[in-house]
């Protein structure tokens, strides 16, 4: 496993995995990298180098878990990134999926896809609800906890002391399962009266979205939650 490091050229990083482009956008990076390395660009843009490397490596290598690298990163930085990905999902990825699905439905005679569309919309409802839950409950809790930790607040306010991140962070399982089902329903059971181009476009978007969501869930479950559990332990033992 060859990890990206501070001397990797930013251009080489994009060449090795173009799916990282939206990830770079979440850090506010724009193209035109010239010969600059990751370190040079992070310094210019005031991006935390270790955090950037941890995120792009975790995205590119499925087996890589940057828990150690992220120990020093503040929860706030991680949450900023997660929030930007949420926004990306809602404003970019999902509208793209919906547009592709609409196009597919429009160009087809049978009613099958109406049912698929309905399935997608229930999936979306659950997904959006999950995101809102994190934005409204889990993230504010983590930020308040980190603040209490940094300021060595003792004793902890009741609103923090009584809860744990495990109360907030619900399992991603069910949401992931539906996305997988959606792909299989199309690949295995669609009747062949669709236009190839339309269906491919829809599936490309779905596969890409799934990859993004899995990466996102991994950062939440393995990195953010692990980190917060440690802070909780420290604060409760203090």
């Amino acid at each position, binding site marked *: 496993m060859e990890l990206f490091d501070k001397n990797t050229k930013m251009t080489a990083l994009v060449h090795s995995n173009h799916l990282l482009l939206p990830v770079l956008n979440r850090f506010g990076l724009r193209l035109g990298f010239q010969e600059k390395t990751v370190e040079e660009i992070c310094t210019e843009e005031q991006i935390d180098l270790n955090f950037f490397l941890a995120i792009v490596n975790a995205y590119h290598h499925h087996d890589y878990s940057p828990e150690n690298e992220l120990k020093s990163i503040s929860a706030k930085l991680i949450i900023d990134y997660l929030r930007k990905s949420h926004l990306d999902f809602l404003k970019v990825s999902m509208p793209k999926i919906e547009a592709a699905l609409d196009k597919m439905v429009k160009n087809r005679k049978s009613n*099958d896809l*109406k*049912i*698929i569309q*309905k*399935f997608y919309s*229930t999936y979306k409802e659950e997904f959006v609800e999950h995101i809102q839950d994190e934005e409204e409950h889990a993230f504010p809790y983590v930020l308040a906890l980190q603040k209490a930790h940094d300021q060595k607040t003792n004793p902890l306010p009741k609103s923090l002391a009584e809860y744990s991140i495990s109360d907030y962070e619900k399992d991603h399982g*069910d949401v992931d*399962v*539906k996305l*997988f*089902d*959606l792909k*299989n*329903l199309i690949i*295995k*059971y*669609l*009747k062949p009266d669709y236009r190839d181009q339309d269906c491919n476009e829809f599936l490309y978007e779905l596969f890409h979205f799934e990859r993004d969501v899995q990466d996102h869930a991994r950062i939440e479950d393995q990195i953010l939650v692990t980190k917060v559990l440690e802070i909780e332990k420290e604060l409760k033992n203090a």
Partner: protein
Amino acid sequence: MHSHILVIHPSEIVLQGLHCIIKSVFDIEPVLLKTLDSLTNHVDANKSQLLVLADESLDQKELSNITLAFPKTLRTKIIHIRQLAEPSCDKSCKCCLPLNASRSRISELIRPILAEGSRPMEKRRLSELTERETDVVRLVALGKTNKEIAKELYISIHTVISHRKNITEKLGIKSISGLTVYAILNNLIDTNSIDPESLI
């Protein structure tokens, strides 16, 4: 004929009644039995399909044990003869026959099964699910719990769970609403009487 039919019911009236209807509609002589005792002796392994119409009061566990021992080449479908239609079973129900069913309802129920039996083996293998698994998917899609499914199909909850596990493995679909979409796409649900979108 590729199929044969067995009717098992303690009532002579029911036996003769079904015999008369099946003979006149399908020109098949069903075998009539009052108990499960000699069931195995009446199974014709040369046929490709066996349809069993069995009274609901029979020992269902024994019945399913007996049918499980039949040759694998013989596709067996069991329909339960009930005193009354279950409130949850509408006209699209393919697994039970209430005693007050009309002649046309009886032929509607049996005809597709016989048609299925006359299709060549090769083609049937394409449908990935067994008949029983298909029944389970249909009931899952209608929103039934494992407990309700077990009751309706006269099998244990444990068996329902094992069917569901196999279904998920075969189809690659895990969520209930995903299975519902599968059932609708494959016409397992009568979409004339139920709005399919309301199920998802």
